[in-house]
């Protein structure tokens, strides 16, 4: 192929296009929408993760952090840490804040900090002061706690055996993000003051954190590795400034990945609009194409000319979409406010923009090639016959091009995914839904063609419009159907989860989880609960925290990456001991120990985690508790019912292994709602060390988080719907000539404009109804699958919200269809018949 052929094609293409994009508006809108969405999602995700990385020191509170559960560092450990850099120590735990008169209590995250805190960032109060550890006896609290207990500066609150004066309201706690999820508002005092509460006891549930400010050129990772080698059995959890909030980062990345996939699905819908727009544009160019052929252009030249035009416009639309997407985070950050975990600075992130541009280009190629392939077969003789030639053939080269572009999109999606398997599943599911919708579209057309003809001519015309030659019913079912299905699925999942969290959980879950009950006062505790509420159900279990340091002969510290799904290896875990099989567990492999077992340490492991670790009965598993390693052998695997709202543990030991380790017990209490507040006011007074977690409040907190996630997902999914609307508008435009013809003939035969509008209304109402039916069926199935098979929750969507969601979509479809019909009504018969 000579270079000059491309030059000729480009010259003619530019000349023919000459800034007239009218025929390609649909292509521009669809590509712009899809690319802007992907670019915005990618830019925002990158912005947040980069901000997390850039502010790593402040977020972590140091260059390196060593965390230990249920103990403080030993003298040797402390000495080693102090030699490494400037040290800051904090302690945090759940505790009950009590008003002096005992009238109210609140579960709080209580944190003690030393004079060196914070090593990085600014700890500030609402008064504007930058502070460090409060004075002895003083405490800083968050606005939420001030409000909850109706506190004022100078008021007193008690924790454990100590009383504090509220001396400031926290404005910014620089390491809040790395502390993770908190079950209540935060209160910060000095380390020394925290110790006066007497809440720090052997067996108490607390976490010690040691942050280090390292010398300038130090590599935190290397320092951490060296310390781990020096203290291999210490069961430290080490974080560096490069990843100060790994849970947050993982959540943001996962959310970003999911939203990107939703955005990609939207772009595929937009691709349908691209294809329709290109087909419509090329139909309008039939005369020009035939003329060019008469003048000596062969089909390859025709292909090149119009490919250059379409790709030039596509590149322009993509560029505009990228610009919008790159700037969108500015608006999103402003609108989202405190919902975002961190407010990033604005910057341009080239990689997500490049990826979005590639997606846009590939979609343009996939959907533009088929109509282009057909257009180049327009015969020159068509100009004489007034024919356009056959629009069915697509040649093998173009098919290959489409296939390669599809493969490239899949490769790009999987290659840029943090979890390729998840992405592959999503792509597979989306492809299956698209294929299903395509089949349904064809089925609807077929059914419309076979349906009994209504007697009324206007109704008959409305029905036949669904299957007439050139009707875009099938494409509309796919384009609008996917958007509506996504909405229906989201509505079903969100309302079902919300009902689970807000109704089922409070109904079936205990009223309280109570932590840190001293083991020697367990009987007193039980008696006090019974005294307050004789019908209360109470379950008490020993509770400890430890870290798995070895499994099946593999030291955890030597692993480069954790096995997929083995979340039990991340950080410390709850442990317990029991003579009998715990409630909610069922032994599926191996054997449970006898009630009086006193042999070598054994452990029973949750079946799923056991599989993730690749363990068998008889394999070794070592945990570190309070700095001491306990090697055990796997005696059995249990199937755990994690949904029973009781105490469920991945690891259970025989009493002989852990009973003598300092520990507390925890309890679940189920009682009449009316007595909850009474118990909440009495028990912390009698048992100052306990923390009482009110399940309803946690459920509400989780419900809020789910609502926020659902909003973000719905926003991304709405692009799919808007793309579908763009396709609908394109379909209306493409069928305009046929509709004008119908309208004119009807007028000729005596129909009024309102009657003609009725035909349009019936047609679009029928389409909207069928679409809603399809979306309802698919959406409910998808929602049911996710809720019952993946989450294993009860299927209980809010039917009102699901139907309302679909209703809005249906009304939008009908409304836009009718709006598009209005110009058709005003066509003048005489003039139209001359032109048609």
């Amino acid at each position: 192929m000579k270079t000059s052929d491309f030059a000729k094609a480009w010259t003619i293409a530019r000349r023919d296009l000459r800034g007239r994009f009218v025929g390609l508006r649909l292509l521009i809108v669809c590509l712009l929408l899809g690319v802007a969405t992907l670019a915005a999602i990618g830019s925002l995700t990158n912005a947040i993760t980069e901000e997390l990385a850039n502010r790593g020191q402040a977020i972590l509170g140091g260059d390196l952090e060593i965390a230990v559960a249920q103990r403080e560092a030993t003298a040797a450990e402390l000495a080693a840490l102090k030699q490494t850099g400037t040290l800051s120590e904090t302690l945090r735990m759940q505790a009950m804040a009590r008003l002096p008169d005992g009238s109210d209590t609140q579960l709080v995250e209580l944190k003690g900090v030393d004079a060196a805190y914070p090593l990085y960032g600014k700890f500030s109060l609402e008064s504007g002061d930058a502070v460090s550890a409060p004075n002895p006896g003083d405490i800083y609290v968050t606005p939420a706690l001030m409000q909850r207990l109706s506190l004022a500066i100078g008021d007193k609150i008690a924790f454990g055996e100590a009383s504090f004066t509220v001396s400031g309201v926290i404005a910014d706690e620089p390491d809040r993000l790395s502390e993770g999820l908190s079950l209540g508002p935060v209160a910060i005092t000095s380390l020394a003051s925290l110790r006066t509460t007497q809440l720090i006891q052997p067996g108490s549930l607390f976490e010690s954190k040691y942050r280090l400010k390292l010398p300038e050129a130090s590599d935190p990772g290397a320092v951490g590795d060296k310390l781990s080698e020096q203290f291999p059995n210490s069961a430290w959890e080490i974080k560096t400034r490069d990843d100060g909030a790994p849970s947050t980062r993982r959540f943001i990345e996962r959310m970003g990945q999911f939203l990107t996939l939703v955005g990609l699905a939207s772009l595929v819908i937009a691709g349908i609009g691209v294809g329709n727009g290109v087909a419509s544009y090329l139909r309008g160019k039939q005369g020009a194409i035939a003329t060019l052929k008469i003048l000596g252009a062969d089909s390859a030249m025709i292909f090149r000319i119009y490919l250059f035009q379409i790709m030039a416009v596509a590149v322009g639309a993509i560029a505009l979409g990228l610009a919008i997407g790159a700037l969108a985070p500015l608006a999103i950050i402003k609108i989202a406010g405190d919902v975002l975990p961190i407010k990033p600075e604005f910057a341009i992130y080239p990689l997500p923009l490049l990826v979005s541009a590639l997606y846009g280009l590939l979609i343009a190629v996939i959907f533009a090639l088929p109509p282009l392939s057909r257009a180049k077969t327009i015969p020159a003789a068509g100009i004489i016959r007034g024919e356009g030639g056959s629009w069915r053939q697509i040649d093998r080269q173009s098919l290959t091009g489409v296939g390669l572009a599809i493969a490239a999109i899949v490769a790009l999606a999987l290659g840029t995914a943090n979890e390729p398997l998840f992405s592959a599943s999503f792509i597979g599911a989306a492809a299956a839904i698209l294929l299903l919708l395509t089949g349904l579209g064809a089925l609807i057309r077929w059914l419309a063609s076979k349906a009994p003809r209504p007697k009324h001519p206007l109704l008959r015309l409305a029905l036949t419009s669904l299957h007439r030659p050139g009707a875009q019913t099938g494409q509309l079912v796919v384009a609008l159907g996917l958007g509506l299905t996504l909405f229906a699925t989201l509505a079903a999942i969100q309302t079902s989860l919300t009902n689970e969290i807000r109704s089922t959980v409070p109904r079936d879950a205990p009223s309280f989880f109570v932590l840190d009950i001293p083991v020697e006062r367990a009987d007193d505790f039980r008696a006090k609960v019974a005294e307050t509420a004789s019908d209360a159900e109470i379950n008490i279990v020993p509770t400890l925290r430890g870290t798995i340091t070895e499994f099946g002969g593999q030291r955890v510290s030597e692993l480069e990456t954790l096995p997929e799904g083995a979340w039990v290896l991340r950080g410390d875990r709850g442990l317990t001991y029991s003579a009998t099989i715990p409630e909610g567990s069922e032994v599926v492999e191996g054997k449970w120990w006898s009630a009086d077992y006193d042999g070598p340490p054994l452990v029973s492991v949750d079946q799923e985690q056991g599989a993730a670790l690749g363990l068998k009965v008889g394999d070794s598993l070592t945990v570190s508790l309070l700095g001491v390693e306990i090697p055990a052998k796997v005696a059995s695997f249990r199937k755990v019912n994690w949904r029973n709202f009781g105490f469920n543990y991945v690891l259970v030991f025989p009493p002989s292994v852990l009973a003598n380790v300092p520990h507390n017990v925890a309890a679940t209490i189920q009682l009449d709602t009316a007595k909850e507040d009474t118990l909440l006011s009495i028990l912390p007074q009698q048992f100052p060390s306990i923390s009482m977690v009110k399940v309803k409040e946690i459920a509400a907190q989780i419900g809020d988080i789910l609502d926020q996630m659902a909003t973000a997902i719905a926003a991304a999914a709405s692009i799919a719907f808007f793309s579908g609307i763009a396709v609908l508008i394109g379909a209306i435009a493409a069928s305009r000539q046929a509709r004008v013809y119908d309208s004119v003939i009807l007028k000729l035969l005596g129909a009024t404009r309102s009657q003609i509008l009725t035909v349009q209304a019936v047609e679009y109402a029928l389409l909207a109804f069928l679409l809603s039916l399809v979306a309802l069926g698919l959406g409910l199935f998808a929602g049911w699958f996710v809720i019952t098979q993946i989450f294993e929750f009860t299927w209980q969507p809010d039917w009102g919200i699901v139907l309302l969601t679909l209703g809005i979509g249906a009304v939008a479809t009908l409304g836009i269809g009718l709006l598009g019909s209005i110009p058709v009504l005003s066509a003048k018969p005489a003039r139209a018949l001359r032109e048609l």
Partner: protein
Amino acid sequence: MNQKPAASSDDAMTEPHIAIAARNVTLSLGEGKARVDILRGIDLSIEAGKTVALLGPSGSGKSSLMAILSGLERASGGTVNIAGADFGTMNEDQLAVARRGRVGIVLQAFHLLPTMTALENVAVPLELDGQHQPFKVAAQELAAVGLGDRLGHYPTQLSGGEQQRVAIARAMASRPTIIFADEPTGNLDGATGEKIITLLFDRQKVTAATLLIITHDPELAKRCDRIIELRDGVIERDSGA
């Protein structure tokens, strides 16, 4: 069919050159009961440099014959040789390439490219044929048809007659061997049409191209060297036979 010797301006040549040679050309559309025979065995031989009128009522097959002879359509049967090229064996793309520099076509509805100026419209076949200085040649052709001051005008800015002049310039620009004109005055008023026909014949004389005109007008037909009348897909009368 009579095979006339090839014509030549050299007095020493005795055989006129044959520009168009068609043997037993048939054209059928559709199949089975829906089959329609449009051309039923056309035998035709046209000398180079001659002007030929193709007459006949509607449906006689004139446009179809022109489509086959100009390479816009492939015959169902028979052979078609156009200026030395066997059009009968070529596919669509080969025909398009074969038309370059060999065939020029003027149509009733002008069929200019609406997004291009008069100059660009005329330049397109020259550019496709890879000819040297296409815009210079195009400008000269437009000047020759009296539109030297309309080079930058778009078709919508030109009258019907002017558009047809552009179409004629475009058809002649690459000095094709044969010009086909299908009812070139069909969309024009009488006076304008007359001017167009005069222009067409003038340009034909200058370029020495073979000219085949489809027309309903017997007066126009009389201006041609030869008149071929078609009826029901066969040649009914041929003044040159």
